[in-house]
């Protein structure tokens, strides 16, 4: 591991993002925009928006960073730069940490902007600290980065990479408890939900929203970060120094 190589990679990824104004604008404007939309869509359903707003603030970065990472990694793979990097003295972990750090920073900015809109003009209440919401959002973003990285290995085109979002994330979001309480789901789905990492990402946010900053929150965060470590390890094994 070399901090120099990690930070150089972070800087390079951020420079690439900085040049892509449209992506930056979409990343920062779409989540608060959707929250505003949802606020008015749910206008006639008292309490509904209040219940899902905080979890959504923390789940947007998961989805967005999943997409951004899988495309960015796919570009590295198909553009020849990954092959070049794999022939240079940089460890796979440095490369992946560099990416993770860059996207975690972006996620922190995204979650902060979304939080400001949610807790400000939209009047969302959280019993827990908004700072904790942003922190959970960053850990969820890392989950998105790690899963995106892993799945980019199975995509041979950007079309495929984008399709992994509905294939891999959407079922988890449906099962996580955001739309329907997990307790009311059939037994089989409850079990599936308990095995999927996004359920824990959601549960942590839901707890903070309700002011339940207890040991279960620690379990949620541990499961999310444990999945990150596992996905990064698997993802690193898909970065090959030698290719056919």
């Amino acid at each position, binding site marked *: 591991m070399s901090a*120099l190589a990690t930070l*150089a990679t972070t800087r*390079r990824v951020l420079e690439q993002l900085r*040049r892509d104004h449209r992506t930056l604008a979409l990343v920062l404007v779409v989540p608060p925009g959707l929250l505003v939309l949802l606020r008015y869509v749910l206008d006639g359903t008292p309490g509904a928006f209040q219940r899902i707003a905080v979890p959504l603030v923390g789940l947007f970065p998961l989805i967005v960073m999943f997409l951004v990472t899988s495309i960015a990694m796919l570009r590295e793979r198909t553009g020849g730069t990954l092959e070049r990097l794999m022939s*240079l003295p940089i460890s796979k972990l440095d490369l992946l940490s560099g990416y993770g750090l860059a996207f975690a920073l972006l996620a922190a900015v995204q979650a902060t902007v979304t939080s400001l809109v949610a807790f400000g003009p939209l009047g969302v209440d959280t019993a827990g600290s908004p700072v904790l919401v942003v922190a959970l959002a960053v850990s969820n973003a890392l989950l998105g980065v790690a899963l995106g990285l892993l799945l980019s290995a199975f995509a041979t085109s950007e079309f495929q990479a984008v399709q992994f979002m509905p294939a891999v994330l959407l079922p988890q979001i449906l099962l996580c408890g955001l739309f329907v309480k997990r307790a009311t789901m059939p037994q089989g789905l409850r079990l599936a939900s308990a095995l999927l990492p996004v359920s824990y990402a959601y549960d942590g946010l839901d707890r903070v929203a309700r002011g339940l900053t207890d040991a279960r929150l620690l379990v949620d965060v541990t499961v999310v970060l444990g999945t990150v470590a596992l996905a990064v390890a698997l993802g690193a094994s898909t970065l090959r*120094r030698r*290719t056919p």
Partner: protein
Amino acid sequence: MSAGARAVDVDNLRVDRGGRTILPGVSVQVAPGTVTGLLGPSGCGKTTLLRSIVGVQRTAGGTVTVLGSPAGSPSLRQRVAYMTQAPSVYADLTVAENLRYFAALVGGTDRIDETLTTVGLRDRLSSLVRDLSGGERSRTSLAVALLGAPEVLVLDEPTVGLDPRLRRELWETFHGLAAEGTTLLVSTHVMDEADRCDHLLLMRDGVIIAAGSPAELRAEADTDDLESAFLTLAERA
């Protein structure tokens, strides 16, 4: 060449790809501090051989030794540099940003300036790579390969699309590097470039059909013209 005097030693290398044998058993030696040219038609296995020497190609048999270590060894990542045929740099970054990133990885930050002069890109420093011409892009990629002051430099068609003056300057640079002890292995299609090499490897269908200095190959084929020498040697093989 004794074993100790070889920068690159490929022994009976076999590479299969997609169920097809690309290299059936190639043996090649490259002397240190020389410019060796690899010539052959498109699809004959030149890039596969170069990739094997860099250590990024999965091989099916034989050995590839570079600077005394198996190709692709971690210790070689600092000492061997590779320029791919398609420029492998970030199109959405400027020339300067690309060089700064790769220099940080190979410890060549203090060589950025010198490298830019070598490839003639000083005035394009703040241009995005995607806005550059094809030749400028491949020069950016070449600059990245030069950053780490490698002992072995593997270049896959480095001068495609360059104007003749720049091409001549780059070949002077290659010989300058060789004089300082760098070993260069360069694939090319261009005959006047072949004539500038110390040693030539002529490849066809995954097999080296002739090897020697340009003068030796001309003598072997009994002609003054390198191109017809190649034709003669290819027909004999």
